[in-house]
Structures are given as structure tokens and as C-alpha cells.
């Protein structure tokens, strides 16, 4: 075995790591390990000078393997792989040791954390010895895009693509485009009539030659990988479409919170109580009446219905405060003499022009009352003194127990993830958070991509959002997609399974465990073969293989077993040091 020349780099991450891990000690210790040519530590390895240092060292010391002990590989593996590539080294000759997220940030004892860092880095060093150069695979990108969801986000994405001359399939579950936005009369904060805007948008989408709208349809299956997806779409009348596409945009939107769950508000009990969705419908028709058909004199708008409360949804639905102010303005115009009460928790009017709307609304004789949305919610009950209901609660800004009479109560219901989010997440291989919203690749710097390359999440299916933010996200996804289409090709992961035909006994066990049908049987040679295009590199087959003929590139048994050795060797070495 030829001599390995390993370079080890330990990152301080400012004080993020250095505060809890003695990085200097770690690098000093690593220098002693076999194969290690040099071990250095530096304030920010990921910075320009940090990467430069690695590149220079590779060239100067002829390093052939690099270990970077820094943050999670999920964040910077790509960064350092690029650095290796720049230095002329195969990018897969890198192994990272996660000493921040899984060490310095979660432990409180500096000695222990340092010890743990040493064993993690030692394991990485042992592992990297077995790394092999892998060749990147470049695939062509299909120029079409699948967009799931025909709301504002989906339509905006489709149009943006269409304007760039790129085709998309716009799949909508219901029988019309427009989603939630199509139900609105006015937008906030400028209270513009949006009915025309949205219908124009729909018209543009329908007219576009580059957009194929499929209504009453759901995606049944998606296969493939970035640039090369194919899927099946089925409509309610059993029509089936088989489509090919290079990228997927998930824009399935939201569903509103079920107001019936709020036990204090008596949504099913009182004909005075309606939801914001129902109110939008009323106001679109221009007639505001309660379910008894009576024009209300006292109207209460209750914020945070189903939001910011542990018994319902813990999160904030982001748009309800502004919608509630919009309603107050609409009501004031329709019913100039009505008493309007806004019952809020925190007034979250944060967007541009929103605080200004709050101010101008407060000039319109609207009574703002604050309640505690985390403690006892307001209680709606029959009014003994009048016809309607009365809302009882402790008003926080005055500390008074008060009663608000109402003959119309509008519950500002929050946003929830769609029921079918789970099936969509399955289809497209993206994850959901505990609230059922899709998880983006990175909450800051990659708010629309997902961990699955070529699949993007936009709009309210990612988290509650207003229209402009949804549109922004939709277009952001388009930027990413256009870039891949324009380049025409994209690099894909090469960490697929590999079958050593010499060892394979032809039991075909691997074929039955593969969820992608990537393995097939070559009857002529009596062995299994892997289709690298279909294989996603999960490694299940490698583990299942009774003869050890299958290995997963970059996650070989050898690599993992030596990683375990390294991990434990350091533990014991230190333990023995201590006992002696």
C-alpha cells in the first residue's frame, strides 16, 4: 500500500468551536497519527484565506487526502470539495468531521468536548485513507418543469418560465386555477382590488403556449432525479398523463385551520360566528350579513384563531393580522355606522406599508382590544341582553374583564399544511417539519431548494406566506431552474451502488430490496447489475447482499468500519492514558 499523505484542518469557527474545543490541542494530537503529513488550525476554514491555505498546502506538500474538522458536512462539504478540485485533487478525497453542530455546540465540558473532537477527527483520518477518487456524473437537463399546485405561486412560476420560453406542466387538484388568492377581494396593505389581477393572471397562464394546465388532477408517481424526472398525472375522470421533466416545483399551498376545533368560539353553535374565509366570500358579494341573514351592528374580528396556541397550532400564521385590518376597512366602508372590534394578541403588521395600514385603520373608529392567546382564549356565549353573542375575556392593556357584544364574529383562521402534503412529500422526496410544512434546503441561504436536487418548494406549503412573498419564492425557484436548463447539464451524485461481479452469487436479493428498481439481473452472466442512473445510493442493497459483492461508493464497508475503528481507538487510547 502506497503511503497516504493526509492534511488535517481544524476550524475554530471564530469562537463557535474554539470556545468548547481546544482546537490547537486537537490539531497537535492529529499530527502524530499515521498518514498525517500536517495538521493545522485556523479561525475560519471556509473563508477565502482558509480555503487558500488548503489549496496551497495540497500543492506544496503533495497531499492526497484532506480531513476538515469543522461544521456539518451538510453545510460545507461542497465548499471544501470545490477547494480540493481547485487544487487539482479529486473532490471525494475529503472527509469532514463535524465538531461544531455535533460537538462544541451541544456539550458543556471543554475537556470532554475536546476529547470527543479528537476521536471524531481520528475516525475521519482513518476513513479518508480508504477514500477513492470518484468521477462526477454529468447528465442532461430536460427543459420542462412540473409544477404541482395552481395557486398564485404555481402560476407565477409557470409564467416566469413561460416568458423564458420554457415549458411547464401546471397540475391543479381542483377544477380551477387561482388557489386561495382567487377567493380574495382586496389585497393588503394597499387595499387594491385583486379580483382582476388574479383573473388576468389566470388568463395569461391559460393562454400561454408554454404552459400545459391540467385541472382536477393529481400527480401519482415521480421517478428519476434532477434533470431527468418522469411522472404520471391522473385526473379525476381517470385520464392519465405520462410526462417527462427536468425539475419539480411544489406549490401545493395551504389549508385553513378548522375553526370548529376552537372550543371557546362555538363556531358550529352560533350563527353569528364565521371564519375569515366565509367573510371573504361575503364581502366579494358585497353583502355582509351573519348566518341569520341580519346585517350586523357589532362586529368582532378575533385574531390568531388556531394560531400561536399550544392546543392548536403553535406557530404564527403571518398574514392574519393584516387580513383582519383589511376586513376592518372593508367593513367600515360597507357599514359606516357599525361598531367594529379588533381583538388581537400582538399586532404583527411588519411588511412594507403594513404599519401604515394599522395606523390609518385605527383612525376609523375601530376598537382594538388585546387578549392573551396563550392563556384562556376569549369565550363566546349567548348575549342575555341582546340578540347576538357576547365575547368575554380579560383585556390585557387595561387589565379589565370585559364583554364585547357582537352580532357578527369573524375568526381569523390560521394557515395549515395541506392534508395531502404527506403524499406530495413522498412523491417528490422532500421532508416535512412537525407542522406538516415542507422543509427547505437551508432556511437562510436556500429558502426554495430542498434536499432533493431538482425539487423546489415555494409559497405557503413551505410556511405561511402572503402573496408577494409566495411570488418571490416562485420566481426564485425559476431562477434556479432556468440556470440548470440554460447550462443544459447538471452534475449528479456518484455515490451509487457498485456490484463486484466476481463475488456476486446471483441470489437477486438486492433486486427485491431496491425501491427504485435500479438493480436487475443479468441472466447471461448470472449476476446482478446496477443501473447507476436509477440508483440513489441509499446502500440498502449493500447491506442486504449476503456475499458482500455490493458496495456503496463513498460509503463502503471498509470506509465505515475503519471510521468505527478510528473513533474507538482514540477513545481507548485516551482512556488508557488516563488510567495510567
Amino acid at each position: 500500500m502506497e503511503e497516504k499523505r493526509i492534511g488535517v484542518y481544524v476550524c475554530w469557527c471564530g469562537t463557535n468551536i474554539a470556545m468548547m474545543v481546544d482546537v490547537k490541542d486537537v490539531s497537535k494530537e492529529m499530527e502524530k497519527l499515521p498518514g498525517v503529513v500536517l495538521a493545522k488550525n485556523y479561525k475560519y476554514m471556509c473563508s477565502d484565506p482558509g480555503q487558500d491555505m488548503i489549496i496551497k498546502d495540497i500543492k506544496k506538500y503533495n497531499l492526497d487526502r484532506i480531513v476538515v474538522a469543522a461544521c456539518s458536512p451538510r453545510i460545507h462539504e461542497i465548499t471544501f470539495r470545490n477547494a480540493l478540485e481547485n487544487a487539482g485533487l479529486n473532490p471525494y478525497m475529503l472527509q469532514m468531521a463535524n465538531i461544531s453542530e455535533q460537538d462544541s455546540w451541544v456539550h458543556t465540558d471543554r475537556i470532554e468536548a475536546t476529547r470527543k473532537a479528537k476521536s471524531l477527527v481520528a475516525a475521519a483520518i482513518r476513513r479518508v485513507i480508504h477514500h477513492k477518487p470518484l468521477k462526477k456524473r454529468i447528465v442532461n437537463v430536460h427543459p420542462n418543469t412540473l409544477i404541482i399546485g395552481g395557486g398564485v405561486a404555481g402560476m407565477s412560476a409557470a409564467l416566469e418560465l413561460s416568458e423564458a420560453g420554457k415549458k411547464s406542466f401546471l397540475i391543479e387538484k381542483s377544477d380551477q386555477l387561482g388557489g386561495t388568492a382567487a377567493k380574495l377581494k382586496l389585497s393588503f396593505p394597499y387595499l387594491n382590488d385583486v379580483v382582476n389581477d388574479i383573473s388576468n393572471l389566470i388568463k395569461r397562464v391559460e393562454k400561454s403556449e408554454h404552459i400545459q394546465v391540467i385541472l382536477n388532477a393529481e400527480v401519482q408517481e415521480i421517478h428519476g432525479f434532477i434533470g431527468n424526472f418522469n411522472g404520471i398525472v391522473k385526473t379525476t375522470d381517470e385520464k392519465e398523463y405520462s410526462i417527462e421533466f427536468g425539475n419539480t416545483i411544489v406549490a401545493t399551498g395551504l389549508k385553513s385551520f378548522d375553526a370548529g376545533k376552537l372550543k371557546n368560539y362555538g363556531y358550529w353553535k352560533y350563527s353569528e360566528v364565521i371564519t375569515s374565509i366565509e367573510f371573504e366570500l361575503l364581502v366579494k358579494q358585497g353583502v355582509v350579513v351573519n348566518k341569520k341573514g341580519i346585517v350586523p351592528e357589532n362586529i368582532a374580528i378575533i385574531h390568531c384563531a388556531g394560531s400561536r396556541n399550544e392546543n392548536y397550532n403553535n406557530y404564527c400564521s403571518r398574514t392574519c393580522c393584516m387580513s383582519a385590518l383589511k376586513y376592518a376597512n372593508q367593513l367600515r366602508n360597507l357599514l359606516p355606522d357599525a361598531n367594529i372590534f379588533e381583538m388581537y394578541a400582538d399586532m404583527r403588521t411588519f411588511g412594507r406599508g403594513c404599519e401604515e395600514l394599522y395606523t390609518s385603520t385605527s383612525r376609523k373608529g375601530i376598537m382594538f382590544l388585546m387578549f392573551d392567546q396563550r392563556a384562556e382564549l376569549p369565550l363566546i356565549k349567548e348575549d342575555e341582553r341582546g340578540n347576538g353573542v357576547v365575547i368575554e375575556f380579560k383585556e390585557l392593556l387595561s387589565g379589565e374583564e370585559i364583554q364585547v357584544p357582537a352580532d357578527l364574529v369573524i375568526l381569523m383562521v390560521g394557515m395549515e399544511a395541506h392534508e395531502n402534503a404527506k403524499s406530495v412529500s413522498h412523491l417528490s422526496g422532500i421532508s416535512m417539519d412537525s407542522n406538516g410544512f415542507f422543509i427547505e434546503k437551508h432556511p437562510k441561504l436556500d429558502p426554495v431548494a430542498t434536499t432533493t436536487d431538482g425539487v423546489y418548494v415555494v409559497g405557503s406549503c413551505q410556511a405561511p406566506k402572503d402573496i408577494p412573498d409566495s411570488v418571490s419564492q416562485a420566481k426564485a425557484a425559476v431562477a434556479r431552474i432556468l440556470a440548470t436548463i440554460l447550462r443544459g447539464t447538471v452534475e449528479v451524485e456518484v455515490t451509487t451502488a457498485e456490484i463486484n461481479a466476481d463475488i456476486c452469487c446471483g441470489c437477486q436479493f438486492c433486486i427485491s430490496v431496491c425501491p427504485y428498481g435500479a438493480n436487475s439481473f443479468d441472466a447471461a452472466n448470472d449476476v446482478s447489475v446496477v443501473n447507476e442512473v436509477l440508483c440513489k445510493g441509499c446502500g440498502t442493497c449493500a447491506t442486504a447482499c449476503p456475499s458482500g459483492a455490493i458496495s456503496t461508493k463513498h460509503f463502503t464497508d471498509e470506509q465505515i468500519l475503519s471510521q468505527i475503528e478510528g473513533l474507538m481507538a482514540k477513545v481507548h487510547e485516551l482512556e488508557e492514558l488516563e488510567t495510567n
Partner: protein
Amino acid sequence: MGGLTMNTRVNPDFEKELQKYGKGNWNECFHCGNCTAICPLSEDGFLFPRNSIRTLQMGLEKKLETSIEPWLCYYCGDCSETCPRDANPGELMMALRRYLTTRYDWTGLSKKFYTSAVWEYAAIAIIALLVIVSFLVFLPLRPDAALMVNESGGVMINSLVAGVSPDRFVTLIEYGDWLMAVIVGGLLITNIFNMYYKTIIADKTVKIPLSAYFKEFWQLIYNFVTQASFSKCEKRSYWLGHLLLMTGYTIMFIIVVVFLPYFQIEEVVPVWHWQRLLGYYATFGILFFLGIVIFQRLRKNPITMKFSHASDWIFIIMLALTTLTGIILHIFRLAGMVEATYYTYIIHLAVLVPMIVIEVPFSKWSHLAYRPFAIYFSKLKLATLKEKSVRKLAPAIS
């Protein structure tokens, strides 16, 4: 959970009602708490102005009616200047003082005067007319008035009236004074009792021990004389100006009501005589203050002078007229201009009397009494509150 009857019902119409007593964008307040925190007079137990704004916005009339807070405010304007929403909390306190004055007044006249300028003008006109008529008819100018000049050339003011001896004339005017004082005082005292009832007796949450009434009594006198609370405001010049006005006015009031026979005398006393010095001090104090206030109200700056209620102008004009006629009267008298002195005297009284009768029990001047009483009452309440609650140094986690 409180029962149905425990909870108070909100009243959205009340805010419109209060707009009659002063103008402000009170509904715009979003309750940041800046005004209360910036006010040096606001303290635990008596937090304002934000609390009052909230009560107003919610239309909790009962709670407002029983609150002392508006009287504790001297309207330095800091709250309004720094209000992030231009909601004008200071002006609300002003409006509330007007409103409370009408609530304390059992005759209902105050409400008429505050909510209708016409009523106030009419009342002033009637009283003025009564004064003028009673002079022209019952106390007409002596036919040989020209002789009524003393050796120093000054008009002998008490001898101007036909058929009435100088001594009797002074006594007549003094009786008039007393009558006025009794009516005005009576009304004021009953109103103060009304205030006491609403703020202390009706408040079942505090039980004030009798000893506290004696222990805190000095507060009443002390605050009346010194306006000490006002001096805690950051703008001390406001306090000085106000003190100048208040002392000037009070001095004149006491002289006229209590010491008239020593004041309204035939001979012209030397310049350094106490009565002339006091008179000049009062005149100067009032004029100085009036000058500034008129200038500021016209400019609508500072913020405290931005909004002028009709009652403000009426008060300023009446006080100005009283002072000016007083000065002119003084000049005419020294110059020996007999007829001019007589008619100016009538005009002087025709302004002074309605001003006192209307302003003191029903309108702006009543705060002269309400303020020190409010402070006194607040101290009574605080004395009981402090025994009850222990203040925590650090705020609790919410």
C-alpha cells in the same frame, strides 16, 4: 372566571362623546407605554396617561368618571411630543379634566358650558348685563361727579355713586363680593364633595383610615400654594409661569373678596404701598402669563397649545379683559378722569363677575380646587395601597 355581571361592557360611542371636550387622535394609540413612562408624575397606583386612553378607547365611562389621574397631570406636553403615533395623550388628560368638571357639577350647567359655546356666551352676557343694569339703574353716576377728585388728583372711587355714601358703597360692593363668594364657593364645595364621592367613597377597593385624612392634609394646602407636583415636570418654566398666574390671581381674589374695604379706598396710596405692590405683582403675573399663552395658542406651538377648546379662549379673553379694564381703571383713576373711571369700573365688574361665577365652579378655574384635592385624595389612596403591595425589583417573567 367572573360571572356575567362582573364584566364591563365596552362602549364604542364614548370616544365620540369625549371629542366634544377636546381634540386628539386618541384612537390611534397602540399602547407602547411611552407616555406613562416619560411622565415624571405617573407612579404605581396612578398610571397615566396610557391607562386613561385605554379606558377611553374602550368606553369604560364609569372607570373614567371615578379616576383621579387627569387631575394629577399638569400638561407639560412631554407625552404628546414623544408619542410615536401622534395620539396626543396630553390633550386627552386636558379633555378629561373638562369632562370630569362636568361630571362633578351637579347642576348640569358645566356640561352645557363645555359642550356649547353659545351657552357660555349667553351666560356671560346675562351676568354682565345684570351688573351693568344694576349700576346704571341702582347705582348711577353722581350728577356732580366732576368734583370727586382728591387732593392728589385721583378719582375718589367710592363717592362716584349718586345717593350712596362712600362707606356704604364699599360695603355694598363687599356684600356683592361675599354673595358671589358664597354662591361660587358653595357650588365648588358641593362639586368637590361630588368628586370625593366618585373617587373615594364609590371605590370599594380601598378603605382609607381616618388618621390618613389628617396625616395627609398638609398635602392639600402645600400643593395648592406651591404647585409642587408641577415642579417635578421636566419643563420647570411651565411651572414658574403657572405659579405666577395662580398666585397673582389668588392674591387679587383674596384682596377683593376679603380685604375690599382696605383695597378700594378713596385716597391714592404711594407706589410702594402694599396694596399697589401686590396689585402690580398680580397684574404683571397675569399679563405675563396671558401674553405667552395667547402667543402660543395662536402659533399652536408648543404641543400643549396646539388644540384650543372654546372654553380656553373664553377664559383667556375674560381674564385679559378683567386685567386690562383693571389697568385702565387704575390709570383713569390716577389721571382723575371721573366719568371714564366710573364706566370702566362698571365694565371691569361686568367682566370680572361673570368670569368668576362661570369659571370657578363650572369651568376652567375649578381646577384650582380640584387639583390639590385630587393630589390629597391620591395620597390617601396611596397610603393604603403601599401597605398592601410589596414592590418587586425585577419584573416578573410573562
